């Protein structure tokens, strides 16, 4: 087992598994967020549940944070190793001749997503922790919808979110589609899986972007 932990292949398993875990999280996230457009009451209910359920707060949330950290730390480790593997660069390297741009630039789409996560954590997670534990405010089951809509009032934040969702789409386009290859699966179902992964990579970021734009252009009038 020690060989597995140190090997280059194991690091790819870790990248693929943590990535697949984050894909599952995205499904949950986009589903709840869509409720903020179609049913504010359900959105409030679901957000309150996620914010106060001990299983979500003290088990699922830490697992999610670990999943995110593992994914980007391992991504950096692999990137450093990969740079070392070609210590002298080519004078002329025609990467576009044999591989799509998105697959060759996962580190850059990943870095944008990481920067976005910092903003996203500041916007929602830090706010939530402050509300609950620093200011020790009482539970309010109806605040989530208003807070979310107000977050998207500034144009700059909406633009940053939408651009980040674009990069998330590019990252998923290659990462999700090739995750099973990293885990050793390449069979008659692979083509179907890749099609599904690419549809997912378009639809989910588009849904996130739609939600941000919808709230920006439909502010709550006080």
């Amino acid at each position, binding site marked *: *087992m020690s*060989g*597995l932990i*140190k*090997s*280059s*292949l*194991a*690091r*790819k*398993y870790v990248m693929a598994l943590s990535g697949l875990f984050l894909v599952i999280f995205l499904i949950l996230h986009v589903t709840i967020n869509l409720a903020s457009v179609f049913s504010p009451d359900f959105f409030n209910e679901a957000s309150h549940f996620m914010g106060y359920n001990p299983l979500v707060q003290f088990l699922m949330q830490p697992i999610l944070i670990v999943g995110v950290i593992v994914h980007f730390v391992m991504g950096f480790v*692999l990137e450093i*190793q*990969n740079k*070392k*593997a*070609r*210590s*002298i*660069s*080519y*004078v*002329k*390297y*025609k*990467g576009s*001749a*044999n*591989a*799509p741009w998105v*697959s*060759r630039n*996962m580190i850059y789409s990943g870095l944008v997503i990481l920067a976005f996560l910092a903003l996203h954590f500041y916007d929602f997670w830090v706010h939530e922790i402050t509300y609950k534990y620093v200011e020790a405010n009482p539970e309010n089951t109806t605040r989530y919808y208003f807070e979310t809509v107000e977050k998207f009032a500034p144009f700059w934040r909406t633009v940053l979110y939408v651009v980040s969702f674009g990069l998330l789409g590019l990252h998923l386009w*290659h990462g999700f589609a*090739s995750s099973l*290859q*990293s*885990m*050793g*699966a*390449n069979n008659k179902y692979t083509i179907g899986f890749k099609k599904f992964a690419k549809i997912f990579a378009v639809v989910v970021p588009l849904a996130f972007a739609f939600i941000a734009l919808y709230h920006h252009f439909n502010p709550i009038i006080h």
Partner: protein
Amino acid sequence: MKLYLKIWRQKDASSPGKIVDYTLDGVEGDMSFLEMLDILNEELVSKGEEPVEFDHDCREGICGTCSLQINGEPHGPDRLVTTCQLHMRKFNDGDTIVIEPFRATAFPVIKDLIVDRSAFERIQQAGGYISVNTSGNTVDANSIPINKHDADEAMDAATCIGCGACVAACKNASAMLFTSAKVSQFALLPQGRVEAVERVQNMVRQMDLEGFGNCTNTGACEVECPKGISLTNIARMNREYLSATLKG
């Protein structure tokens, strides 16, 4: 045709190299790329200059000795051919061609365009064989039935000539296509299953020790491979390695 060549010149492994410009006239479309370099070298020798060193042997695409990164692609712009099979008709009069050695930390430059690819041999030695007694105890090849699909896939994997184009093309200088082809050609056959667990572990360990990069599934190796070795081999190696390690 007249060509403008930009060729990497490097005296030896410890000296710094640089791109040197040459102009070559009278190149015919039916010459191979290596024949074009032969003509350049004849000119250089006649002028008392040192010829450009490059690897070559069979010159018919089966030995895997020739290499060269040509205009940013291993074995040049053509598909499913080695440099020795690349014809000058793929280029136009007045073209500038940049010629470099395959670049990877695990493939150090020996001189000019020649790189040391013995890392591949060490990966092969780590497990790319089956332990059978072949002297006086030969077993008929057809004594163990093998279904055609498996035999074909094993044969496809075995067509890897170990040229290193996969490493040269990969943005990470990964050797996973080569290693996986060598793992697969045995993993698919009953004779190879006996040592399958140790084989994949030992070959992957050696691959990592050599300092190759990781696979990020860009598929560049598959596109540039002169023998069309498929990415399915890498998936098979990933599967074999996971299964071997969990068992071991």
